[in-house]
């Protein structure tokens, strides 16, 4: 009993001591998050000035970051903040800057160029953005000229949208047991192909909604061993466009980490579909799609929202084919900016270097989500 009291007293004492130490002598990053009182103050070099700005952005100390800028007369603090956190609700709105990199590009006695690479943590994973900053020397201090990107403003207008919408009424508990329920959408896997990668086995394929109603879809796969026993079951998670309108095709990718293709005798595919209320808008045009060769192989392009409704989050999925038309890879990217009507937003889907040479064509689809309901 007495030893228990001693342990409790020791724990309380240690906690109090650690809290005191942490409060009086916090480390730099904790201080930046907590109070902003311990930011890197140095602006004696261009890199130090950008480092200080990065810390302030990470701590969301907008007033401090704004006041350090050389060109703050050109925009307001609110515009500066919205430039980083978005004007309209999107992935960036709910993101935090987890880390940043400072890379000097050019320097003279009076001005310099530094690249600031910002690694954001978003609800769908990491997102990278980069800004090339111009700095000027003001006395003994270097100051950043922030390259403000003012969001395109959609002029006030009425856009008539003759949109299609599907609503679903399911059977109720009071119905006769023989009464029909609404039929689940008919979907079909039109292509499936396993690929062995260093990190494991990957299943690639395409799923078609061959029905006349919208479908919420997902795909799971079970690997079967040579002795006919299941090895593992995995789903496509978000590497698929979950909502398919009639006759729409989505690629899918299912990862089986640490599984070798040589251990697999067969694969049991299980496409799932259910009826969901859906809207046929917004229509997103994918412009200037271009396959860029290695190094840094990628698929780039621009998304343009042709409807009047803002698409807050866009998920771009690229299906890559070889010369024979077989799927060799599926890549995706979440666009962290909202798609405003008629305002192009760039996307960039990374392609693994070793596969880039095999790719001869691609097909891109976009899934969008609007706040207040998925579209």
């Amino acid at each position, binding site marked *: 009993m007495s030893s228990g009291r001693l342990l409790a007293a020791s724990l309380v004492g240690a906690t109090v001591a650690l809290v005191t130490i942490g409060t009086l002598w916090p480390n730099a990053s904790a201080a930046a998050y907590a109070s902003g009182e311990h930011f890197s103050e140095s602006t004696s070099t261009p890199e130090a000035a950008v480092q200080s700005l990065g810390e302030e952005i990470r701590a969301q100390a907008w007033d401090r970051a704004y006041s350090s800028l050389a060109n703050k007369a050109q925009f307001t603090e609110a515009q500066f903040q919205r430039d980083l956190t978005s004007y309209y609700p999107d992935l960036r709105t709910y993101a935090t800057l987890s880390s940043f990199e400072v890379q000097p590009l050019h320097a003279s006695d009076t001005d310099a160029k530094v690249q600031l690479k910002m690694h954001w943590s978003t609800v769908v994973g990491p997102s990278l953005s980069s800004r090339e900053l111009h700095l000027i020397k003001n006395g003994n201090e270097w100051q950043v000229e922030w390259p403000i990107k003012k969001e395109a403003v959609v002029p006030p207008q009425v856009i008539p949208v003759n949109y299609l919408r599907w609503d679903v009424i399911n059977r109720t508990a009071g119905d006769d047991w023989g009464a029909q329920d609404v039929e689940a959408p008919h979907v079909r896997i039109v292509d499936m192909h396993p690929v062995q990668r260093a990190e494991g086995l990957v299943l690639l394929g395409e799923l078609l909604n061959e029905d006349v109603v919208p479908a919420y879809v997902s795909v799971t796969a079970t690997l079967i061993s040579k002795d006919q026993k299941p090895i593992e079951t995995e789903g496509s998670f978000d590497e698929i466009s979950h909502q398919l309108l009639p006759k729409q095709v989505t690629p899918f990718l299912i990862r089986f980490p640490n599984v070798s293709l040589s251990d697999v005798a067969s694969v049991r595919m299980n496409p799932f579909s259910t009826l969901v209320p859906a809207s*046929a808008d917004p229509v997103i045009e994918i412009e200037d799609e271009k396959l860029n060769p290695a190094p840094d192989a990628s698929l780039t392009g621009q998304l343009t929202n042709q409807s009047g409704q803002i698409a807050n989050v866009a998920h771009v999925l690229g299906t890559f084919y070889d010369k024979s038309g077989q799927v060799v890879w599926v890549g995706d990217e979440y666009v962290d900016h909202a798609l405003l009507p008629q305002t192009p937003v760039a996307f960039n889907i990374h392609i693994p270097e070793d596969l880039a040479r095999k790719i001869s064509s691609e097909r891109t689809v976009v899934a969008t989500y609007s706040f207040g309901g998925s579209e």
Partner: protein
Amino acid sequence: MRARLPILVGGLSLGISAALGQSDDLRVPASIEAGAAFSIQCGGSGKATLYIAGPSQVIKRDVQLGETTWFPAGSLYNAGHYVVMLASPSSSQAGSLDVTPSKKPADLTFIAKPSRLQVALHNGITGTAYVFDNYKNLITTPVQVSFELSNPSTPAQTRTVQTRDGAAWIEMDSTSREGKDRFVAQVGNVSSERVVGQVPGDPCSLKMNARASGDKVQLQTDPVRDCSGNAVPDGTIVTFTESYNDVKSTVDVPLKQGIAKVDMPAQRGAIISVASGVVLGNQIRWEQ
């Protein structure tokens, strides 16, 4: 030989008694129709209690031995095997009776699948009917069930099927016209109706036209129809793809009022194609 005759008669009597499932003093009908009136005769004298127990039903009745006990219509209505027990202060006897479903159909449960399918599919629709009597007992004796699939624009398909173990099933073709078909199963004057939605199939001969619209090219499909001539429903996705040098533009456009329409960048020499699902349409080379 004389000595053997009483043994033979006694054995036969016992055998018949056992076959009827009753003792000498308890005369129970071997079977009755569900809901029918029936009687049980109890031999002897004095008072006793009669129990009848079966699926979801138990009847207890005080009876006078030596008299016939009458049970009115509707007393036993759940089909199945029942045990009859007669308990008196001095002895107890047992028997059994079977309650069979009524032969007159009174209810029909009809399962039709699917509720929605493409037009012109052979044996695409299945219907299964279960025939019940007035007390919801499945009628296991063969009954003729007629199935009819009809819509206003095509002749009705009618077939008659005999039930087996209470169920009758059928496969039918979907018609070539889209719309809502009435699928009816009927036994006597009892019927059950389901609706089967027949929807257009894949687009057939998808064709688009292009015309200049400022610095854009306006692409528009002809009214999109399936191979039976039905209009493909609005909301169906049509994909327009424009390839120019190594650059491509793609738009997924839903059909609205039967056509898909979109503006794309006008690039001289661009190849523009159209597709819907796995169906490819025509290709245009833009030369303006």
